[in-house]
């Protein structure tokens, strides 16, 4: 019906149902209300059977801010009256939905794939087709730029530690000279240094190195979490590089609810690597990429902005198989942000 019932209508309805006089019902309602007010004043808590609980709550004084002037204001404390309907009343009005229970959602709805699923394509396809227009509001652009400036130095450090040890041995000088030649050529031509190009060359050289080099491998094992242990420190201990922790997380996902906090005394499986640091095999790179994919998904689930870092690395590692695995689970907005971050120079 959705009508407003006035006090007099309510009195008439109750009087008709109970068989009492209107005066008596009117008096009953008035006195009940005044008793409720008195009870709240005296005890701060009133329970009316069949109706609900009234509770008096003190809201502490706090410092607010005028959004227009930015001036700080002291908001005084005040009393608030809270009402909570009795369970009987709640059940009565919800009897239509009583049979419904919370149901488990097995999987998140799949999002639009961002990469053409063509396994034959050796070069990484465009993350987002150029023709496709994505409407990004001014505020989103502003915030993405802001995040870009914050995240880029972090990612630079991460990638520096990730790639630097890979370029060891005699071939290191060759790959470095290649990179420097390319970068100097570009600067001579007056072009901007594009991080993507340098990154491509580095990853190619890593792959070439990994194919050519003798594979000795890093044995896996089991680690018992001690006080102060984090995935980074465990990764440093076994792989000599902390930033490979997503590879450990990938294997232990079922036991680790939050990668930032480990349970004391729990067992962590350390996955073996076929290659060594600096000579990682293709399979290792695939595993590591998947680790970064999982790290992205868990941080995304927690709503953490760190997720973008791991997505960025996943894409930059350019392992097609790994990218295709996560293509349907990546948020399109995140990709847009990562795409904006792509232009940041990696090698100065």
């Amino acid at each position, binding site marked *: *019906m*959705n*009508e*407003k*019932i*006035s*006090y007099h209508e*309510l009195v008439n309805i*109750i009087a008709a*149902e*109970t068989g009492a006089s209107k005066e*008596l*019902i009117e008096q*009953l*309602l*008035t*006195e*009940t*209300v*005044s*008793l*409720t*007010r008195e*009870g*709240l*004043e*005296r*005890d701060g*808590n*009133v*329970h*009316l*059977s*069949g*109706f*609900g609980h009234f509770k*008096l709550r003190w809201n502490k004084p706090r410092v607010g801010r005028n959004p227009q002037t930015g001036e700080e204001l002291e908001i*005084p*404390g*005040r*009393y*608030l*009256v809270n*009402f909570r*309907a009795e369970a009987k*009343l*709640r059940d*009565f*009005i*919800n009897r239509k*939905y009583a049979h*419904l*229970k*919370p*149901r*488990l*959602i097995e999987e*998140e709805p799949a999002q639009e794939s961002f990469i053409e699923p063509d396994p034959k394509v050796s070069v990484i396809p465009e993350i987002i087709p150029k023709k496709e227009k994505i409407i990004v509001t001014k505020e989103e652009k502003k915030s993405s730029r802001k995040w870009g400036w914050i995240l880029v130095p972090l990612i630079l450090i991460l990638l520096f530690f990730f790639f630097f040890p890979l370029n060891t041995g005699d071939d290191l000088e060759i790959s470095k000279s290649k990179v420097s030649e390319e970068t100097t050529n570009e600067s001579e031509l007056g072009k901007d240094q594009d991080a993507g190009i340098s990154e491509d060359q580095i990853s190619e050289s890593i792959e070439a190195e990994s194919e050519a080099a003798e594979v000795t491998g890093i044995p896996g094992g089991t680690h018992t979490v001690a006080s102060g242990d984090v995935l980074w420190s465990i990764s440093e201990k076994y792989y000599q590089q902390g930033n490979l922790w997503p590879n450990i997380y990938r294997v232990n996902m079922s036991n680790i*609810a939050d990668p930032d906090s480990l349970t004391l005394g729990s067992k962590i499986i350390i996955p073996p690597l076929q290659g060594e640091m600096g000579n990682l095999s293709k399979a290792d790179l695939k595993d590591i990429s998947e680790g970064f994919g999982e790290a992205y998904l868990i941080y995304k*689930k927690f709503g953490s902005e760190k997720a973008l870092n791991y997505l960025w690395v996943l894409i930059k590692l350019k392992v097609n198989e790994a990218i295709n695995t996560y293509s349907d689970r990546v948020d399109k907005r995140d990709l847009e942000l990562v795409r904006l971050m792509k232009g940041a120079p990696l090698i100065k």
Partner: protein
Amino acid sequence: MNNSEIIKDLSSRLNQSQDETKRLLSGAADQIQKLIDEDNRISIPNLGILSVSFKKERKSFNPIQKRFFMLPPKRLVKLRIASSLKKQFEEKRYSDE
């Protein structure tokens, strides 16, 4: 203040027996329940306006189980507190200070 105390005080104010007061009070509560159930808004002077709002089905994350759940729709009883009641406790605040 609990329900029995209210009935005791009410019966003395209305000059009715406690059983009769209890019957009238539960009858009034039943009628209010029925009216609310029909999506009506009930105005009670010096107390507030009772109404029902509808909460749609929504997705929720259980942090312990680390799983997403779809919660069923439900109706909520809301009471918009009357300004006279708010004023009463505004005065209480000043008297406390």
